């Protein structure tokens, strides 16, 4: 089977769609963008290249844990996200880093602003490292690794939003 070459524009369309779903809290639709073995990772601020089997991450979800995380954050009893934060993210500097065994490696930068009533704005700044696989004309996410550049979470506090 021959497949057309992946272009940055294709990947950007996918990432911008993903970003919109996350900002709109359409998390069940977002889950449809994941493979059945997807992982969702946020490494600790002092071990950005670490392995979650050896190092204490902020988040290291397998597919089932992602499902449970979404059940949790959509539940009104998830106090950290009730009322829901408003978020707005900008995704840019999208780069295709290569393709290995059908896995497309993508890097992108992001800024995600988080607003809660009476609270100072939270600015999550960092880069996304994706492993994507083809899904027809579009893609699915096999791994999303979110590198937060802050030296410590500090005033960002918790990561109860989906980044």
């Amino acid at each position, binding site marked *: 089977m021959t497949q057309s070459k992946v272009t940055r524009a294709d990947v950007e369309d996918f990432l911008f769609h993903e970003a919109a779903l996350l900002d709109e809290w359409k998390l069940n639709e977002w889950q449809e963008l994941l493979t059945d073995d997807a992982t969702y990772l946020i490494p600790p601020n002092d071990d950005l290249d670490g392995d979650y089997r*050896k*190092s204490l991450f902020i988040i290291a979800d397998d597919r089932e844990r992602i499902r449970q995380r979404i059940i949790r954050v959509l539940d009104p009893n998830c106090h950290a996200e009730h009322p829901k934060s408003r978020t707005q993210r900008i995704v840019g500097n999208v780069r295709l880093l290569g393709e290995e065994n059908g896995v497309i490696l993508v890097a992108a930068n992001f800024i995600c602003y988080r607003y809660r009533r009476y609270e100072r704005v939270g600015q999550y700044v960092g880069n996304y490292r994706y492993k994507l696989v083809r899904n027809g004309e579009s893609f699915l996410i096999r791994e999303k690794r979110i590198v937060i550049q802050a030296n410590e979470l500090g005033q960002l506090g918790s990561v109860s939003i989906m980044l």
Partner: protein
Amino acid sequence: MPRSYVVDDPEKGVFLLDREVHVSEEVLREEMRKIFAKTWIYVGHGSELKKNGDFVTRRVAGRPVIFVRDQKGEVQCHFNTCRHRGALVCADRQGNAKRFFCVYHGWIYGNDGDLQRVPGDEAYTPAFDKDTLALKRPARFEQYRDFWFMSLDPEIVPLTEYLGRTTEYLDLVIDQSPSAKMEILPGTQEYDVGANWKLMVENSVDDYHLPSTHATWLNFMANSGVKMEPPKEKGLVLPTKGYAIDLGNGHFTTDNVNFRGRPVAAWISLYGEEAKAEIAEIKAELVERLGEERANRVAHTNRNLVIFPNLVINDGSSVTVRTFYPEGVGKMHVTAWALGPVEESESARARRLDAFLTFYGPGGFATPDDVEALELVQQGLANWSDDRWSEMSRGMGREGEQLNSDEHHLRIFWRHWNDMMGAE
């Protein structure tokens, strides 16, 4: 009579806390002098410094320090402050160094703190004595089983005496390791909470809040096949009975029969079928080494231990070492690590870390809701001057053993805190 911040009337069963303690700048200034300068404060764990020259820099009780293993292998704690004009002499978070170099005028210190070199030292008079200009240290620096603490008070009792009965509970945590060696794992969680630091003390041991604050965690556990229902016995809010234990000197712990699974060594379905055999092996090793009774204590009980004033060791879904320090009356900085046995297998280590994340930390399924609860308290306390007292009498009429879901242990903290604040 010094001012009291509590109304404590055991006869009537009344305990009230003056909410000013969480909002007053004056109280915070007094705490610096009467609490944080008069107690033993956790600095770090020896396992963070594996080789000679290994160092980490951090703020301990607001003080920038260098926690370092010197060339002789001795663990040291220096103030990270040049004796010349006061600059930090080390800006790196961690690393390995024989010397610390002040970038301002180039003074150089050995990792044992001695002042080794001063550029152009011929310009000084004979009164200038390098031997008196080693990096300053906290007045006292001692360890219990590789948990290192400092004190700014030269007159304070020795650490082991200060820790008192808390060592029984530290020993229980350390007994997880066949070689009696635990280590801090890589990956530090550092986050701020917009609340007074003492609210974290309360929250860390308050089992009353679990069903309401952590409803979604209970739901997650149920979804994962771990059903938790409170027992029928009157007055219990948790699935199993647990106690609040006074350990003296303002320290206290909960001591609970486990209901939530433990990587050491109580299997739950969340860990997966494939983990069963290894957890059984871990348990068997505990029994062989410690005997049945103690092994069951290690494997099937959990505890949240507070070492006054600001160290918490949660030995629950995993082991956390957590410390926090005020940055203003309405804000604290939290630092948390995971602790595990040094000889743990790769699979057991991965399970320990995963179990940690099911509950604890800024991305966990429980801690973010704790943080939210504490921030809601701090926001609500803006009305403190017109709604002055927090009601903390829960369980006060109970004789004998005290429940983890009552407020006995919180009262222990507040009485001790109040006594220290009342001292001159």
